């Protein structure tokens, strides 16, 4: 059995490496392309930001919901993926009675769930597991906020962050992102008005989403008039702090065809990182790792920018969204300000982006990447309600975790794009 699995894995890796990149794109489909599909996707948010259940309760609720959505049961699950807790996937398996044959507790902050989808697709393609469940729950409003208070932070008192950044008062997430925004403004002439337009466009989507935390429209002036948190970022340039939870079920393309919902195929994936939690180590703070993960995922999927119907990306702050659009190649580096200025990202725009309202207006429990994927699946299934992008066939989901540290790009597509 071990030999058999190893042989399958080796053949996958060998096929992966053999053709040069040009051939991959034009002649030989990447072995990961459409090998796996998301077949279950649910989330839980609340317009008042509170869910009133514990993280553990929410995890179980989400897993049950995602399996019901897929038409599968817990007995079908042979892999759990989560960020929560120490040895999280093992503890979760013990609670649920799941004995996994592949497992993943990778934690890359907000991009973790895109990384999980990438790993699930790779494991499924290699025959290492067949049904993977990815889950997330966090209750910073109703419960304990792991991001509050400016404590030792990730890695404790010996971490680089604690020793070399926090003594200078860099503890707030907005602080690091404001450093990126300032340099982007300096290098490219990006303005606060242009950043504000991003918040306005995402709010226009949230107005159409009955589950969004914020459902009242805003103007650029509203964003500019909101209090400064870390100049040049205003309060309305910053994401929410809400309770939230979600789960995804990923399985093989073959098995997906017989299930309850239309499969949403994983067409491409890429992950890259530049640094950990110290933005002083990032290098060029105006370019995220999406400049690597994005092109890789799109090449794997064999798509160009014109093929993309909907973009779901990480908007921890408006600047995160702007730099991500540049890094994914929707416009040149430095042109993001102009690119977003005409409402291109909002309802009726040519590049519908963050159609649920995003982390700025829908929900943000600390790691928004789960909701990026759930909304992308909803759009590709045509379940978007008032905010549905007509005829959406290809979506890009881009997570960004840490402090602009680790991006993971997933290209998703419908049956028509296989």
């Amino acid at each position, binding site marked *: 059995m071990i030999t058999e699995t190893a042989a399958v894995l080796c053949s996958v890796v060998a096929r992966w490496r053999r053709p040069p990149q040009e051939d991959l794109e034009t002649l030989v489909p990447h072995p990961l392309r459409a090998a796996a599909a998301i077949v279950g996707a649910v989330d839980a948010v609340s317009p008042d930001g509170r869910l009133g259940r514990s993280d553990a309760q929410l995890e179980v609720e989400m897993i049950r919901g995602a399996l019901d959505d897929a038409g599968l049961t817990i007995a079908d699950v042979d892999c759990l993926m989560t960020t929560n807790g120490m040895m999280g996937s093992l503890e979760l398996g013990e609670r649920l009675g799941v004995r996994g044959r592949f497992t993943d507790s990778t934690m890359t902050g907000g991009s973790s769930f895109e990384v999980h989808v990438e790993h699930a697709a790779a494991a499924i393609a290699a025959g290492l597991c067949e049904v993977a469940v990815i889950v997330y729950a966090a209750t910073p409003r109703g419960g304990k906020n792991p991001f509050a*208070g*400016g404590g030792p932070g990730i890695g404790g*008192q*010996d971490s*680089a962050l*604690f*020793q*070399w*950044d*926090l*003594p*200078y*008062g*860099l*503890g*707030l997430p*907005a*602080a690091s992102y*404001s*450093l*990126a925004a*300032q*340099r982007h403004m*300096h290098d490219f002439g990006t303005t606060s008005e242009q950043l504000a337009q991003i918040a306005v466009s995402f709010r226009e989507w949230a107005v159409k989403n009955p589950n969004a935390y914020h459902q009242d429209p805003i103007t650029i002036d509203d964003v500019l008039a909101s*209090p*400064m*948190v*870390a*100049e*040049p*970022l205003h309060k309305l340039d910053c994401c929410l702090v809400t309770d939230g939870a979600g789960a995804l079920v990923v399985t093989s393309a073959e098995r997906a065809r017989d299930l309850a919902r239309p499969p949403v195929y994983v067409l491409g994936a890429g992950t890259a990182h530049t640094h950990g939690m*110290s*933005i*002083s*180590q990032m290098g060029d*703070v105006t370019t995220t790792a999406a400049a690597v993960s994005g092109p890789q995922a799109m090449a794997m999927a064999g798509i160009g920018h014109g093929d993309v119907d909907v973009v779901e990306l990480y908007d921890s702050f408006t600047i995160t969204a702007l730099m991500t659009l540049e890094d994914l190649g929707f416009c040149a580096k430095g042109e993001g300000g102009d690119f977003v200025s005409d409402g291109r990202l909002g309802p009726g725009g040519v590049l519908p982006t963050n159609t649920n309202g995003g982390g700025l207006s829908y929900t943000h429990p600390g790691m928004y990447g789960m909701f990026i994927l759930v909304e992308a699946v909803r759009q590709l299934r045509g379940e978007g309600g008032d905010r549905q992008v007509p005829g959406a066939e290809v979506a890009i989901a881009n997570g960004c975790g840490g402090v602009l540290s680790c991006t993971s790009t997933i290209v998703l597509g419908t049956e028509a794009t296989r």
Partner: protein
Amino acid sequence: MPRIEPPVTPLAEPYWDATRRRELVAQRCDACDRFVWYPREVCPGCLSAELDWAPLAGTGTIYTFNVMRKPGNPMMGDDVPYVVALVDLDEGIRMTTNVVGADGSLRCDQRVRVDWSVELSDGRRLPVFRVTDD
């Protein structure tokens, strides 16, 4: 100005000792002759463990900065607004710091010089920076 006071790890002890003398030092890699910030076990350029401590001129340019209107941690609640900056030192390393004494005209690429006015409770000092005319 109360600060989070980081522990003195054995690795970083020479750095902190130098700050007591108002001297700014950083590790330099013997193998590839580059300065390293922050203190660590190996050179991030070549993985050599041959790192020595070397003095820094204490001058550099502001790569980027912000103005903190909300405190980054509760201890600094009385200090807002304050400026957090990434400063590119002339030796080719980038450190997180504060720019003190700044007015509203602060901008990227301005020249700065080290300032030793911030003392921790045990006599160590946190190097911060001040804009210079040159």
